[in-house]
Structures are given as C-alpha cells and as structure tokens.
C-alpha cells in the first residue's frame, strides 16, 4: 500500500512540475518579419538596471559604498559596448524621451506579464538629432543577481513568494525584459523576457562584463528567431 501511495505521489509530482515549466517567454506582432540588422536604436539603458543582493556583490567587487549605483553603471556601459560591437550604427536614446509615456503591461503567457513604458499610440519618437528611428529596442528592466529565475519575477502567481538567499552561489544571472518597438506605426513588434546564467567561482568585473555580453547575444538571437517564426 505504501508503495502504491509513493508511486501516486511521484506521478502527481511529475504532473505538477511538468505543468510549471511550459511558459511562453516572448510575443510577436504578426507584422514582425525582419530583425534589425546593421543599425539599431536603443532606449532605456540608463535606468533599466537593478542589482539584487547588493551586499553580496559589494563584498566581492571594489566599488566602495555605492555598489548599486556604480555596478549598474558598469553593467549599462558593458551592455552598450556589447551592442556597439553587434551593430555598425548604434543610436542610444536618452531615457528622458520615454519618461512621460504611460507604463503598460504586455501579456506573454497566461500568467506572464511584463511592464514597461511604451510610446503612446499616434506619437512618433524623435531622436535628439531630429531623425526618426524606424525601430527602437526598449530595454525595460535588467535584473542582476545570483541564481535568479525569471518566473519568480514575472509569473504573477509566484512574485509574492519570498526566496531564500542561497549561501553557495553557482551563477550570476541577468533577467532582461525588452520590446522591439515599431516607431512608425507605434506597435510592439517583439517582446520578450530572457534569463541568462553565467557560472562564477570568484566574482570579478570580468564576470559581470561576460554576463552582459551573453545577455546581448541572447537578445539578438531571440530577435532573429522571433522574426523567423
């Protein structure tokens, strides 16, 4: 009898875990046919970054008192640098351009919603130099921490759960939510939440840089595969 209950329990457990893992992490507009190539306009780099477990990072990085500010700045720089490597012409818009737009949530899956400021319907965003970028990659949020899972941040059924800080850190992770915005027709072409893990033994700035490199690679890869679908 005990064996029977054991088997049933294992089956039930398999059933539930099986269900939990099938999230849809991106959404695309039917008009999204081609990923940006060669040229990219990007916005949201200044304010998007946030570091969780600041203390853990502060103990390992040499930023003095203001680890949160300096480390996010470092990451933003690293990400921008990485984007510059990927696109021959990279245009970075200041965050102030988006500041007045309402924050909206986009639905990716039944329980997955991502929040971010999107330009208003009928309003075209002009670059400071007067040009009109056809597409803008809006970076909404980059969460940097240790062993993060994106469902804990974006599944509304899980976001109120408190997570324990694990003592042994296997990875540093970044969770990035972004939207490729059609500036001419004011519609989200491709929206996604990505999770990037980078294993660390002893944390250095190189690891953070590497994490940002992987993040940008992941974003670019997803934008390409999203267009192909």
């Amino acid at each position, binding site marked *: 009898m005990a064996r029977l209950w054991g088997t049933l329990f294992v089956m039930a457990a398999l059933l539930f875990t099986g269900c939990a893992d099938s999230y849809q992490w991106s959404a695309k507009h*039917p008009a999204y046919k081609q990923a940006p190539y060669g040229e990219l306009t990007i916005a949201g780099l200044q304010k998007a970054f946030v570091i969780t477990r600041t203390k853990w990072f502060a103990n390992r990085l040499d930023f003095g008192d203001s680890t949160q500010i300096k480390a996010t700045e470092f990451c933003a720089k690293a990400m921008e640098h990485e984007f510059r490597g990927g696109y021959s012409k990279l245009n970075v818009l200041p965050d102030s351009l988006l500041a007045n737009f309402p924050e909206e949530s986009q639905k990716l899956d039944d329980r997955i919603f991502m929040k971010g400021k999107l330009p208003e319907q*009928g309003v075209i965003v002009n670059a400071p130099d007067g040009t009109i970028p056809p597409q803008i990659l809006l970076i909404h949020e980059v969460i940097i921490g240790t062993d993060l899972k994106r469902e804990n941040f974006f599944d509304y059924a899980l976001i109120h759960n408190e997570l324990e800080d694990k003592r042994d850190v296997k990875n540093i992770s970044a969770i990035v939510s972004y939207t490729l915005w059609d500036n001419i*027709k004011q519609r989200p072409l491709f929206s996604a939440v990505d999770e990037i893990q980078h294993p660390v033994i002893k944390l250095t700035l190189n690891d953070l840089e590497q994490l940002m490199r992987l993040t940008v690679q992941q974003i670019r890869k997803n934008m390409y595969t999203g267009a192909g679908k």
Partner: protein
Amino acid sequence: MKHLSLIAFVAVILMQAFLSGTAHAKDVFFDSHWTLWQNADILIWTPDKEPAIDPKEFCLSLRRNNSGIGEPKCRLFGEWERDTVAMRYATWLSNNIEPGLNAHLLKARHPAMMAKLQALEDKIVLFIADKGDKLQIAIFDETTLEPRSAGTVQKKNDKIALGDDIASAFFGRNTKRRLTKEERLKMETEPDDLYKETPTFRSWAGISAGYAQAHIPLTPYNWYKRKIRSRVSNYRATRDSVSLWNFMDDSTPLFTLYAGGIWFGFIGGEIFYRYSNHDVKIDERDEVYEELDHWNFTQHEIGLNVMFARTYDPFKWLDLHLFAFLGFQYSFYSEDIDVKDSKKKPSREYQTRFRTEDPYKGALFGFGTQCVFLQHYGLSVRTGISSRGKDVYVEPSPDAAAEPTTIGATTVDWFVSVGLEYHWTPFK
C-alpha cells in the same frame, strides 16, 4: 458546340472577375457580434479634414439598408475630433488597420482613451479614415477597448453610394431595442437568473421503472446466444451453468427504489433496492415438467453507488445533472415453485433441482442524467451494466455429485430505467 463551350468558359471567367471585383469593394477584416440598437446613435469619427460621408445621407442609407433600424441619428463626433488623445489614436488606427490583424492588436492603450470608450453609453462610433483609394472603417462601442469590427470599402465620389456600401457591409445585422433608463436600472439591480450557488448538499429519493436484458447493446448477439437460448431440462441440466441467464429469462421489467445525496454538485452516493421477476426457462419438451404449475425467481438487489456529477443550468426552471456511477450490490433470489394440485408427490428430479446462491455479490456502473424542474421535481434516466457473481472456489463436499452445483458464477446484464424523483436541500 465547341464555340458554345468556349463562350460558356469566357462567361464563367468574366463572372469570376466580376464577383471578385465586387468582393474587393468591401472588405471586412473581422466582425464580432456587436449589438446594433434600434434608433441607434451613430457618431462619425474621422482623422481627416473632411468626413468622407455625409451624416444625414448616411442615416438614410442605414434606413434603406436595414428596415429594422428605426430612426437612427447620425452626427460627426466633434468631441473626439477636438481631443488630442482621441485624435492620436485615430491616426494610429488609420496607420494600423490592415488585413490579417485581430481586434486585440488594435486595442486602445492610453488610459484616457480607454475611459472615453467606456463612457460611450450605447452610442456606436463609426471610424472612417481616408487611405488613398479606400476608406478604412472601424466600429466601436462601450463594451470593449478594441474595435468590434474593421474593414475597408472602395472610395467613391458619390457620397450616397458610399454610405450605402458602408451600411450594407457593417450595419446589416438584426437590431435590438434599447432599454430605457428605468429598465436599465432594474436590470442592474435584479439578480441574475442564471447565477445560482450550488448547494452544499442536495438529496433525492425516487422510484424508477426500467428494463434489463443480458444482451448489452452494441455488442454482438453471438456472445449471448448460448445463454439466451439455453433451456433447463430435468430441473437442473443446462449446457453450462456459468450465468444465471442459462436458467432464467434475462429480459424483464425492473423496478427500483432509491435515495441519494450529492456534495457540492460533484461527488455523491446513492442507496437502492431493485426488484425484478425471472421465469425459469424450462425445456418444454421434457416430460418431467408435466407436474409443474409454475417456477420463477424473484430477484431482490440492494446496493450502494458512488457517483460523480456535473451540473448545467440551461434555464431558470431546469437543472441538468449529468452523472456517472459505480457501485456494488448484493442479489438475493427467492424461488416460487409449485406443482399442480393434482400431483400429490413431486418427482425426484423436483427435489434435486438447481439452487441459487444467497447472496450473489456484484458490481454495477453506468451513467445518466437527472433533469430537475423547479428545483424539486426530477426526471432521471440512467443506463448501465450490472453483474452478480459468487466465489467459484468452494470447499468440495461429499454431496457435490448428488447436489446440483450452485449456479451463476458470472451473470451480467444491461439495464435502462426512467425514474421520478423528488429533490431537496436539507441544509444550506
């Protein structure tokens, strides 16, 4: 003849071209079932300097096109045309209405625009935007934040013909009478007929009549032929004795008394008593039966079902419970046999006739429905399969050879019954 077929072919081609041409003049990308009110208030909203249609003429087009529309009122929607947020959304719509997009992708996203749409109060907004050789059309009402339908019509210089085109493409549906202020208030306060809480516990008692037979429908008759055709000779002998139906008539009326209850309209139980009467199938050719007056068995069964149900409320006065049940039962047979009065002493065969086991144990399963009218009066239909059996392995006894083997190791039948029930909820 050859020429004739050629002409016919060309005619078909021309017809095709003509038909596809007219289909192209009006293109409806999507159309949800929005409500068109009688005497509708139609507000024409356009991002263009000049509206492409004339409101008065459009009203006449509507009346020509849809006889049920009553007296619609049409006017330009100046309030929205002077509003920045609404005009931005209008420009956005004219940029974005394309074939292949669903309504959701055209949703208004600005909070101020959403509020405007929700405040429409029974008015219908007709969005018209000039797109070169076509006019984009979209229809909004207060119920959603996205267009209820969208499409294009071919642009024409004749505003009357244009109005007719729009009216026939988008306003051809049945109309509904608009509620008055009082009716609306009443509707808001009165409880919803279809909304009803499932009671914690519902119970019922019922009586049913039905029919049972060995042959399970949709299965080959071959499976049962031997049992059904079997006859008892010499008060005890049949070809085989596995089933009771080798000895008794299987197809008989069936009567049931039952009572049950269900928790949360989902899981429940039922206790029942079933009665039926089975004649023994004696072999008429056998002379030994000449002494016999009658011989039959009354079958009494009591049992317990567990049931799972699902409730539907198609009407206010009707609850429909579909259920499946699974249960066990004990079957008892009481024999009623008598020899003719003229016969003083029954034969030896009579004394050694077959016996039934008491009780037989069995299982039953099936499904059915309870239609409960006015919450109390139920009509129930159910069907299923029930079995009776006995332990095959029994201690051999010295009498085994002389005594008849007790019969009916496996007896299965199919039943269907219709019952009258009374339902009540003893506690809320």
